[in-house]
């Protein structure tokens, strides 16, 4: 994080906050998906969020005491 420009810092903070809730970066997902599976349909933002929510609590959602 050498670049101290504010938009970048804000974006990273939001990314961290979302990941704390178990929601991975949507843009990274789209970039990856388009590169690897160019023919398949990418999940929408809503569907992506629901998938991540289900994944977080699939086995109950274990965190520390």
């Amino acid at each position, binding site marked *: 994080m050498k670049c101290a420009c504010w938009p970048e810092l804000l974006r990273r903070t939001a990314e961290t906050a979302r*990941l704390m809730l178990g929601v991975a970066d949507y843009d990274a997902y789209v970039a990856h998906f388009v590169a690897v599976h160019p023919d398949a349909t990418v999940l929408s933002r809503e569907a992506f969020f629901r998938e991540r929510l289900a994944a977080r609590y699939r086995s109950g959602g274990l965190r*520390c005491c």
Partner: protein
Amino acid sequence: MAPARAIVAGRLSAAHILAWGAVALLGGASLGVLALHRGETVSAAWLVAAALCTYALAYRFYSRFLANRVARLDPARPTPAMRHPDGLDYCPTHPVVLFGHHFAAIAGAGPLVGPVLAAQMGYLPGTLWILAGVVFAGAVQDFLILSFSVRRDGHSLGDMIRRELGPFAGTVAAVGVLAIMVILLAVLGLVVVKALANSPWGVFTIAATIPIALCMGLCCRFGGAHQVLEVSAVGVALLLAAIWAGGRVAADPAMAAWFTFPPRDLALMLIAYGFLASVLPVWLLLAPRDYLSTFLKIGTIAALAVGICVTLPDLRMPAITRFADGSGPVFSGALFPFLFITIACGSVSGFHALVSSGTTPKMLQNEAQARAIGYGAMLTESFVAIMALIAASVLQPGAYFAMNAPPAAVGSTVQAVAANVSSWGFAITPDDLTRLAHQVGESTILARAGGAQTLAVGMATIFSRVLGGGGTMAFWYHFAILFEALFILTTLDAGTRVARFMIQDFGGNFLAAFGRTDSLPANLAASGLAVCGWGFFLYQGVMDPLGGINTLWPLFGIANQMLAAIALTLCTVILFKLKRGRVAWVTCVPTAWLAVCTLTAGAEKMFSDVPAIGFLAHAAKYSAAAGDFQVLAPAKTIADMRQVVINDYVDVSLTALFMAVVSVMLVVGAAAAWRAATDPNVTAAEVPDEMRVLA
């Protein structure tokens, strides 16, 4: 191994030696001041300095040794996220972002409660164990489990135990984890009940979190899921408003009566709530409350750090109190072994092994980052424990003991409590106790063992010095209570679900229909079993004349440290399988220490002659009294007396189960390590080295 060698070969320059020497000197001097100081008070600055210097040295030197010589991290070796990225579970993540994720997953109520309870022996024993424990056990476990999981495609702790130690060990460990879940949930539930008993302000704010979370859940589900951060921000603002409204409710006698409940009723409500919450869809209640508690937790920890570093309050608790001998009112048992199981999270916590082998290993960009994330996040968690210890120690010791001593020991009026606590040498007047209760907006602060209230009063004292003065103490107190209760309710909900899946997994072996997680009857039955499990211990704890925490926290501590011993045993076996037996002392030493602590503590909990410590002695006392038709508190009838005896036998059985699990795992682990040591080949199940990118 070339890159790793190159890092090790780097020698320290003279300037580095001077700088690190200065850090070591400052840390040593700070610890010296803490240990030798014999005045009325000592500044928390010494404690903060000692902790930070210890962490800096441990990170710079010990974690580097672990990374280069023990785990042999190789930046060129692709991580699971690099090998098969899917944009979902497996995605290479910026290390700072991942650190935040990992820290949020390991930080919880544990490091805040344990040190507060341990403060009854003075601040020094707790400090030394938190620092030594994290450097040589806790952070080592977190780091190595993370590293080994990265080398195994992000496998979970259970999978790694099955693969490296065999299916039998895997089953034994799974039974242990289920038993830990049950006792953990009961103890955390007890902490909430103790904090909310007869507190209309507290109950109102916690009750308000339910409609707030439901609204958030509905908003996220139907109003735009990607707005999760914005929705959470509104939720946090509503929570703060609920704290303010709670003060109004508590001030109005008619409304306050609706939200005032004795401990027993709260326990029953919590059990019913736990069942309902765990069978509702996750998006409706669990997830939004999880979001609120995550942000409140990070915010509170940050605020506490700022508050302590700005005010640098004086510690008023003595370095060592007379209760190091085991006669303390908060938890029973002598310094060894009970201090070492009372403070679990913050020095070493077996639970972290489950988290470190969960989502984090699937997101590492580069193996070398495991050091900062595994070892570094645990050091940060340890600092949270140090801050909790400071918050408990800034209180007047008399007030600390008045809050945490059970009524059976000190009475239930302010006069009786003040007289008894003062007679122990911690001067306090009835007026002091009444004034403190009034300051935090409560009718009483007595008999609230469990850590939450003590921490809240300590935090309120510190926060109100930074922001707003004494008039805001009541707000900050209820803010701290809300944070802890909200967090614990989320854990109860999530934990009940985890226990439910485990029960269905086991039950499915005998009755296939029971194992189907999508079947509603099976779901209800397994959730009911899970809730009955922890509900039993919660109810027993609430009815306990010694306050419950006194009996049950050590059981939780034993369970958690036992899981850490299992995780470290696995690490030891893997090191031998990798033919790195020469450095296996890094895990053997903490494993041995944890085994000695948990087995000694377990044996004392079962067989000690002191009824406050030993379950069998306690059962014998109640059986004998019942034989003479005597009724001892809290029992009111002979039938109650029998129930007390039955509870004791259940506790004995659970302790025996914990000891059996840890013993079996140690024996299986030792045998596997021996086989690996005598085998000339590397036998660990790592992802092959050919996958290395030679770039």
